[in-house]
């Protein structure tokens, strides 16, 4: 395969990976920026979305699109319960407590998921029309990945417009910027947190389901991919919406590139790059110090 062709492949697959990473991680970025809460268990929502989607499709014959939506909404609702009952008690707590608490949640979810679905990865059976290759004229691409990139971009656009144009979005941005000021302006931050948390978790679930092809749905999901989500958020900048997008693209494309070009050192280079980047910009590329 010649250089240009390889490059296009890498960028394409890297982008698909990046989109999934972003959709899952954007909720984490906002949660951390908004509530100052280090929710390491964020991956659990993505995992739950993946499991629900595949179960609905495989066991109940629900069509792909509906399964995704149903999974996302279910996870969002569950996250509201979790937020009200557990997370909200720890908002003022120290970072260690938050880390421990969320690690505990990961452990519990691993066990529960293993018990219900067993240790093997879930099968993701793509709908007929999304399988195979898509001929885009100059070359053919895997249909599903193309679909993934397209849908993700649409979702992201909707998200960004929502944040910029709606009242809700304005409130989130204000509260991330300065919580006390937002409160004194009469914004109900408690409810804002809950809604934002639900939105972020729902998105993560959506990302988990959409990305089941790339990030295999298995019990260790929340542990395995934690580093990726954290990297995207840390490099992007906590609380930022755009930042993690750039970070996800950088990470997704470079990860794919290195794994393809120099598989012996593969992930190694990514870690060094992230370490270097964070040392240069500890608050992330778009974060506030």
């Amino acid at each position, binding site marked *: 395969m010649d250089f240009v062709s390889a490059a296009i492949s890498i960028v394409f697959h890297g982008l698909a990976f990046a989109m999934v990473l972003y959709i899952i991680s954007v909720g984490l970025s906002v949660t951390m920026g908004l509530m100052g809460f280090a929710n390491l268990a964020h991956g659990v929502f993505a995992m739950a979305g993946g499991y629900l989607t595949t179960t609905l499709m495989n066991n109940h014959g629900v069509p792909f699109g509906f399964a995704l939506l149903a999974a996302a909404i279910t996870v969002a609702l569950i996250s509201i319960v979790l937020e009200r009952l557990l997370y909200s008690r720890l908002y003022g707590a120290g970072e260690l407590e938050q880390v421990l608490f969320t690690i505990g949640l990961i452990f519990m979810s691993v066990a529960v998921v293993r018990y219900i679905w067993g240790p093997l990865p879930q099968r993701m059976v793509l709908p007929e029309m999304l399988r195979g290759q898509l001929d885009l004229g100059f070359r053919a691409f895997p249909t599903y990945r193309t679909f993934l990139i397209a849908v993700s971009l649409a979702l992201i656009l909707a998200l960004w417009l929502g944040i910029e144009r709606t009242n809700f979005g304005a409130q989130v941005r204000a509260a991330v910027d300065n919580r006390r000021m937002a409160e004194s302006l009469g914004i109900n931050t408690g409810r804002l947190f809950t809604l934002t948390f639900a939105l972020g978790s729902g998105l993560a679930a959506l990302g988990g389901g959409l990305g089941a092809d790339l990030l295999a749905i298995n019990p260790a999901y929340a542990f395995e991919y934690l580093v990726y989500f954290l990297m995207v958020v840390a490099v992007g900048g906590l609380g930022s919406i755009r930042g993690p997008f750039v970070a996800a693209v950088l990470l997704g494309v470079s990860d794919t590139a290195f794994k393809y070009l120099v598989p012996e050192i593969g992930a190694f280079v990514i870690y060094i790059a992230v370490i270097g980047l964070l040392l240069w910009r*500890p608050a992330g590329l778009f974060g506030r110090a």
Partner: protein
Amino acid sequence: MFHRLSPDDPPVEQMVQSHKLRPLELLPWLAIVGAYFAFPEYLSLGSQILLTVVFALSLDLILGYAGIITLGHSAFFGVGAYTAGIYALHISGEPLSGLVVAALAAGLVGLASGLVILRTHGLTLLMLTLAFLFLIHEIANKAGFITGGADGLQGIAMQEIFGQFRFDMFGRTAYVYSAVVLFIVWLFARLLVHSPFGRSLTGIRENVTRMHAIGTPVRRRLVIIYTISAMIAGIAGALLTHTTQFVGLNVLSFERSGEIVIMLILGGIGRLYGAFVGAAVFMIAQDELAKADPVFWYFWIGLLLVLIVMFARGGILGLVDQARRWLRRRV
């Protein structure tokens, strides 16, 4: 806290005497010596517990005392374990020199990473400890020609300690060896923690802004304790290699990093003895319960962690403290 005298003594005396050994502090040592005679069939588990206590002590120094939150501490444990293994396979099976070399290697890696990541704090720092752990894991994974890659280092043969004590198959030598190393580490850690340096670490943890405002070279202190902690973690790793005569990639796992944090929290951080209590309780429970149902072991550990955070932040020793205070009020 463990080192309080009677509240009736004059304050200056209380401070000046606070480092003196309390009788209660000998309890773990009674247990360790006693276990050697009382549980001869469990000495293998015993040495594993002892070396885990060493590992937990190293973590307490940075997490409990200095307040550095890390999920990547097994990086140094792993470096120590692999160094000890490589040393034994290619240079000499002599254990004590292996310990020293492993400690130095781990310390060097600790110094390098500390200099780099301790410029940051909070989530970024946590992130970097993870990235660093995965980095070392990748290196060990890919550098199969030294580390054995996914298969690990096999066929490690240890020589006698002092040319006399062979590593026997009942685990007696391993147990005593681990206990003695633990004893030395414990003495050192105890001295460190009661020194002005140790106190300043507590100050950094409690209020770093204040520390800057009283003229403390904060980063220098943190890098020093991080390096020391890495060395001790490396010693623990070397003990693992020496006592099990095998090193695999699991010494560099995220699970191990997470577990050691859990053990320390379970026992109680920032008080040195939490390491003893937490490691012992966790590993004994794991030995009993995980055999029966490994899946639910994970669940209960997770639940335990959540409950500790919500209701018993000081861990077991914290609860013991509360009980003692309650009793004192009754009496």
